[in-house]
């Protein structure tokens, strides 16, 4: 029938099927990404784009301290958000996996994912209502009598950005950890206790190492997208809370300097990718030999 061909009928059918979304992703993701790489080596000349190859954009990013400062702040905010989110999420994922009856697990997951699916913009804005000058926290604390003047360190600064992002990405952190925890063979934990470990030391010697792939997944899935968010810093960050994504957005939509914006986007993406790769590399011994 198909003597000599290396692929079976089934395989070629699978390739054709997967080809459809793949071609779509190439056209709408790979090609545009290639375009911004190209653009980053060009310059904006008022209304027109000068297509001579140049490293000017990258030179400018390296020379102006504002970009380095924004990038540093962005990575720091994303790092803190990631750490806070994952640390707060782990016990919840653990609780659902180990302490919730199997029939109730999907209800819990459903409850946790619902806020994630509701309008992001409105959720961010609501944090403003909560943390604001006459917001829920301030007016609540004043009514109780704990404070007399509204607290100002919780809005229009980096803290506010971190709180809001940590809230927005919570389900992203819980799900990968939960999935890995679910796969852990429960008899391994019994074996550990049978061999003399306490419940706590079993957690640190067995459960935690086995769940590390989920933690790594959670870290990546929170860290990478948060770098690209400009809504939260715009609404919550005030003047001192702007991040690199705001700068990219400004370059593209307000300053109409697409090449510089493209270069910024690429630098930001390279930094994120590098950090993600280092993180994965550092955790490679937990990831090896799984699945």
């Amino acid at each position: 029938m198909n003597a000599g061909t290396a692929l079976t009928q089934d395989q070629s059918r699978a390739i054709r099927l997967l080809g459809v979304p793949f071609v779509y992703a190439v056209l709408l993701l790979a090609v545009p990404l290639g375009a911004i790489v190209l653009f980053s080596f060009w310059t904006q000349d008022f209304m027109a784009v000068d297509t001579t190859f140049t490293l000017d954009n990258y030179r400018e990013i390296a020379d102006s301290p504002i970009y380095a400062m924004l990038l540093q702040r962005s990575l720091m905010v994303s790092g803190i958000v990631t750490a806070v989110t994952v640390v707060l999420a782990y016990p919840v994922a653990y609780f659902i996996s180990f302490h919730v009856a199997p029939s109730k697990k999907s209800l819990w997951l459903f409850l946790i994912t619902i806020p994630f699916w509701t309008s992001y913009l409105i959720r961010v804005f609501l944090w403003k209502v909560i943390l604001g000058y006459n917001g829920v926290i301030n007016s609540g604390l004043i009514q109780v009598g704990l404070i007399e003047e509204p607290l100002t360190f919780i809005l229009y600064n980096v803290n506010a950005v971190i709180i809001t992002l940590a809230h927005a990405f919570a389900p992203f952190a819980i799900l990968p950890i939960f999935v890995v925890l679910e796969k852990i063979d429960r008899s391994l934990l019994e074996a550990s206790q049978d061999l003399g470990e306490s419940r706590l030391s079993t957690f640190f010697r067995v459960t935690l190492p086995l769940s590390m792939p989920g933690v790594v997944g959670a870290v990546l899935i929170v860290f990478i997208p948060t770098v690209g968010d400009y809504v939260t810093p715009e609404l919550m960050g005030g003047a001192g809370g702007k991040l690199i994504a705001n700068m990219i957005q400004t370059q593209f939509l307000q300053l109409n300097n697409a090449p510089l914006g493209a270069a910024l986007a690429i630098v930001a993406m390279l930094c994120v990718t590098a950090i993600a790769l280092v993180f994965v590399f550092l955790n490679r011994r937990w990831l090896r030999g799984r699945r």
Partner: protein
Amino acid sequence: MTDLIKLRGVNKYYGTYHALRDIDLTIRAGEFFSLLGPSGCGKTTLLRVIAGFEGVSAGTVMISDRDMANVPPNQRPTNMVFQSYAIFPHLTVAENVAFGLRKRSDIAKSARAGLVEEALEMVGLGGYGKRAAHALSGGQRQRVALARALILKPKVLLLDEPLSALDKKMREHMQVELIRLQRHVGITFILVTHDQEEALVMSDRIAVMFAGEIGQMDDPETLYRRPKSRRVAEFIGKMNFLPGQVVALSGTDAKADVATGAGQAPGTVPPNRTNRLLTDLMDKIAPGTDTTEDTETPADTAPAPELMTVEIAGLGTAQISVDQAPEGAKLGDAAVGIRPETLAILFEGESPKRHECPGVVDEVVYYGDMTYYDVRIKDVPQPLTIAMKNLIGRPVLEVGATCRVAWDDRALVLF
């Protein structure tokens, strides 16, 4: 019987993996044929090649003298019972059984409901038609799968490990039922199984497969009694292997020895019939020295065969007929195989046998109806496994006990 399925030089590659190697196979109409082998031997691939789910890399598949090269599964005169049964969970039992009738213009719509009920009754599920398929038990699913395939009256029914998902009791019950069903419908059944007992019990013929090749193809009795290779012998049942040496070809006629009366002592104990199908089968095809009533030797009735003389380490000299040895056997080293149930431990009071040697019990495994002993014999490199029936009054020996081990020329297989 006419030849129904002919496979010639069938080869199948998955990339560089050679899944089927030069398969030549002829299956006759009305036959219950089994493909037996360990997992990964290619037996399921071969079945799927016949069904049309896998193309071949080389070779031809003919069904009823028609080349199947470009015939898709939906146009082949074959139907399949899948290992998972593949009962459509969104349909009722009757809708499942009637599924294949949709494309059959030769069957009137009005007749279909009757056919479905008939098919369900045939598999013992009469009246189950309205049930939801996902609520059925494993055994019931299998019956639905059978009815769904047989209602189309295929020339060949392909069964992919159909009993492996069932528990032991149910499996034994379904073995008998499948044999009955096959006789009733007269359709060719091709069964894929890794269970040698299942294959021996059910099949007219068995092809034993290893690593994509057919190791041996024979009826169950020949396969069990005269395995052509050590791996076939090891896969089907248990066998002891001893180092031996062929010292003479075309030896003298054995009649002289037999005529002295020392060759066979009449067995005095009636065979203990158990319910175990395999044990019955072993009795039938491999008469052990302790159970058979054997007053006349084959040498008396058959023309004297050509003989070979074999020296077996620790046991002594044996004379065997050439059909117990591979074709073209030469003088020199050879492996000698003996099935555990063809060896016998002689208990007190039993008359001496022609071949006998002293031994010491090394290991005892008690199975209820049988006891398996490992017995050490001087100059035999490994202890011999001996299967003894636990007959009335027969003791179970303990480890360390000394005993006499008897063996018979006719039970030997040379490799």
